[in-house]
């Protein structure tokens, strides 16, 4: 008997009698002999809890965590502080051992939390509606592009800014590889989308224009310029953004965005070696019924009491099947719950303070690095919590040196943006103290 397998041998016998089978093997007789697996799987013998814990601890210690280093790297995953309350609440088993809330009467907890999440996303992004979450920012962006494409009959061009995270751009390509679409990259000019080039490229065959702001280089883009172009050409305007930046930055909804998507890992979820993260998806009124994935809606019960249900399910894969625009089934509910709790803790004043702190920390760090004389800011543009400098020292060497000193240095951009030379993308969140930044800059600026 195993701790997860309650049936004792005696009970197994009783159950077999009830079924009318002489042994368990009989229950597997439908499996043709030719494909039956005999013997045991070649997997090491099971461990007890004590042994497993030790084993996993050892394995985890073969990694160096960002709790033991000072993190100045972003590039899509951010070291934001997670208030203790987030895990205390999200780890309640009624939340995490629950299934998707299809039986609304016993899932009001999850459904209401989703409704609150949707509301908060709409508040920050300035959009009409949000869904219950997507897997991550990159797939969320890809799905927005797909919906824009499918809805713009007779248009098959999508313009994607080079300012988008390189992996997001790759995911868009993969997601749309099964469709008849022409994905074109809009180049950058001085660190942001080349708006003039965009105006040239955007025409009546363009289904959507997709930009990221703050972009991969940390620079805040001019959304009004882009929306001017998309409106003129009746193309959908998709913005990939950072919800924390929207604590002080203008909501893309106010600039006429049709879809606002992005990565919300920084809100209450750890970096987790890349997953699970949290995609969000918000849309303007025109596209409410086209949003992919799960959506919670408010309604009443037969006695008029307020409650919540999953709604607009007719678009989803389990009903539309091959006619569905998206195949998404699961979402990242638990991560969205963590983000909801996080946003409740941070609150109306806090999100502004947090955003301002990140922006100030980043600005300060850039100045300290430039002061050393070994770094120069590549583009003189307003940035949020990340910035791109060109380093005098080869960034590979620089990072190796800093690693030994206990720092995870900036992201080396040479492979993904070869046109930006020896670029070093440094991220600074509210977790970084003045001391850490001063020491980091000093070490980075050393001549070796």
């Amino acid at each position: 008997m195993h701790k997860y397998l309650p049936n004792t041998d005696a009970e197994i016998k009783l159950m077999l009698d009830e079924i009318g089978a002489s042994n368990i093997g009989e229950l597997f007789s439908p499996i043709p002999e030719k494909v039956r697996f005999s013997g045991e799987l070649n997997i090491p013998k099971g461990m007890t809890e004590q042994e497993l814990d030790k084993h996993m601890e050892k394995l985890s210690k073969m990694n160096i965590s960002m709790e033991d280093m000072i993190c100045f790297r972003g590039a899509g995953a951010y070291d934001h502080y997670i208030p203790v309350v987030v895990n205390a609440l999200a780890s309640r088993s009624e939340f995490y051992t629950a299934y998707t809330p299809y039986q609304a009467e016993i899932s009001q907890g999850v459904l209401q939390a989703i409704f609150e999440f949707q509301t908060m996303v709409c508040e920050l992004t300035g959009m009409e509606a949000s869904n219950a979450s997507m897997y991550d920012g990159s797939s969320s962006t890809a799905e927005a592009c797909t919906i824009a494409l499918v809805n713009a009959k007779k248009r098959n061009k999508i313009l994607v800014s080079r300012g988008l995270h390189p992996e997001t751009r790759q995911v868009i390509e993969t997601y749309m590889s099964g469709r008849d679409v022409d994905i074109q990259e809009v180049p950058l000019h001085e660190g942001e989308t080349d708006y003039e080039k965009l105006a040239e490229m955007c025409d009546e065959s363009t289904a959507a224009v997709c930009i990221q702001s703050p972009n991969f280089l940390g620079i805040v883009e001019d959304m009004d310029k882009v929306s001017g172009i998309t409106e003129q050409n009746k193309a959908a305007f998709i913005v990939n953004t950072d919800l924390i930046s929207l604590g002080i930055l203008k909501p893309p909804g106010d600039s006429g965005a049709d879809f606002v998507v992005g990565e919300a890992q920084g809100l209450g979820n750890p970096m987790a070696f890349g997953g699970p993260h949290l995609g969000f998806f918000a849309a303007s009124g025109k596209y409410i019924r086209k949003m992919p994935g799960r959506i919670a809606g408010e309604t009443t019960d037969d006695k008029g009491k307020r409650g919540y249900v999953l709604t607009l399910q007719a678009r989803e894969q389990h009903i539309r099947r091959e006619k569905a625009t998206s195949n998404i089934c699961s979402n990242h509910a638990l991560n969205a719950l963590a983000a909801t709790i996080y946003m409740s803790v941070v609150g109306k004043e806090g999100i502004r303070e947090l955003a301002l702190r990140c922006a100030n920390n980043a600005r300060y760090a850039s100045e300290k690095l430039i002061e050393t004389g070994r770094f120069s800011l590549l583009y003189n543009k307003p940035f949020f919590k990340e910035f791109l400098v060109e380093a005098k020292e080869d960034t590979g060497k620089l990072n190796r040196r800093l690693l030994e000193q206990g720092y995870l240095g900036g992201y080396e951009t040479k492979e993904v943006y070869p046109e930006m030379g020896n670029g070093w993308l440094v991220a600074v969140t509210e977790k970084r103290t003045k001391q850490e930044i001063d020491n980091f800059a000093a070490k980075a600026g050393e001549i070796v």
Partner: protein
Amino acid sequence: MADASLRYSKDHEWVKVEGDVAIIGITNYAQVQLGDIVYVELPELSAELDKDEVACAVESVKTAADVLTPVSGTVAAINEDLEDQPELINEDPYEAWIMQIEMSDPTEVESLMNEAEYASYCEEEE
């Protein structure tokens, strides 16, 4: 109540011909299958459609169904009442028309089923 002169498609649409215009809706059988209708995605005015092309969609809580046009032509009118009151289709599916098509080939109607044929078609579907 269904008008005896109506014609029917295999996809449970009804057609009423008035001159060169085909008035189209979905049948009682269809609305019963769908359940409470929550949303009708109307076609675009002046859209040109071929016979059996997907013209628009009707959504209920539990399902979404494409409405195919039983005849080719141009969308001359759409029933905007359905935007705010999609339930009209449940209440009287033969009154609550969805779209009117100016037919490009009026003979197409002849290949549709008549009342009796449609009735036995529905029985077979059961």
